[in-house]
């Protein structure tokens, strides 16, 4: 489509095609007054400032405090606020508890919905077509590739974030951590364990 406004060339050598598309889209949104450059900068700054450390704090507290865990399973947004964490704009966040009997795994088959406020930007594999399609078709095979081998009698629940609710996994607390304080526990909680594709780091 032809247009008459000036802008930078839309491709740059070595740049992925998606970057040119994003820039073209941003130019249009700004030109049409939907967003300002400052809004975009602020959102990107916010996103890259988020890290899995916040989610790890929530998990560590849930391991230490059963009543807090119950509140997180009901409404992890309120639970995060209780810890002074920023739960982001998602209207609802729910924690899912992995136990000896049930293992949760989170995916977004439609796009890349993810609890960004608590985990930071999603990893590339989370957004990839193979993960998104195979997680719901062969979850045990996917888990095996991530190094998680589950017993037959453990029920796998793949949670497809198809709408407004975001899900974060509370992994199983590792054995041998009974004397750990909250900071020491949080250090064991990895991003992948809160998506459900890994166990926490073993202690020691």
């Amino acid at each position: 489509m032809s247009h008459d406004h000036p802008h930078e060339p839309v491709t740059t050598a070595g740049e992925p095609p998606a970057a040119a598309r994003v820039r073209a889209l941003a130019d249009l949104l700004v030109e049409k007054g939907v967003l300002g450059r400052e809004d975009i900068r602020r959102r990107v700054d916010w996103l890259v400032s988020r890290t899995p450390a916040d989610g790890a704090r929530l998990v560590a507290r849930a391991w230490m405090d059963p009543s807090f865990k119950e509140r997180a399973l009901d409404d992890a947004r309120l639970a995060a606020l209780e810890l002074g964490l920023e739960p982001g704009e998602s209207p609802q966040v729910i924690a899912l508890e992995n136990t000896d009997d049930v293992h949760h795994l989170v995916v977004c088959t439609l796009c890349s919905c993810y609890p960004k406020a608590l985990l930071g930007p999603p990893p590339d594999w989370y957004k990839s077509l193979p993960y998104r399609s195979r997680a719901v078709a062969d979850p045990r095979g996917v888990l095996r590739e991530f190094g998680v081998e589950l017993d037959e009698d453990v029920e796998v629940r793949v949670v497809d974030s198809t709408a407004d609710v975001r899900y974060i996994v509370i992994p199983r607390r590792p054995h041998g951590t009974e004397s750990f304080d909250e900071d020491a526990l949080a250090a064991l909680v990895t991003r992948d364990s809160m998506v459900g594709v890994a166990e926490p780091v073993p202690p020691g």
Partner: protein
Amino acid sequence: MTFAAGDDVVVSSRAHSGHHRTPGYLKGRKGTVLRVHERFRNPETRAYGGDGLPKERLYLVGFALSGGDQVLADIFEHWLEKAA
């Protein structure tokens, strides 16, 4: 039609040409309501600049996989039917 946890439901298999958040692999599948969420703005009109009102009820529905495993997905009420 509203549903409660434990209700058996079927995901409508109707075609929908615009944006919607009902995954194709679940259309026509039978499942069980596990959790009743709040009502949320309808993504089918929000996607086109609309306000998404009236809000639609969202449900967490469990679908059986082989070997006793499950897929859980959030499905809007207007995509669910009572299971026969």
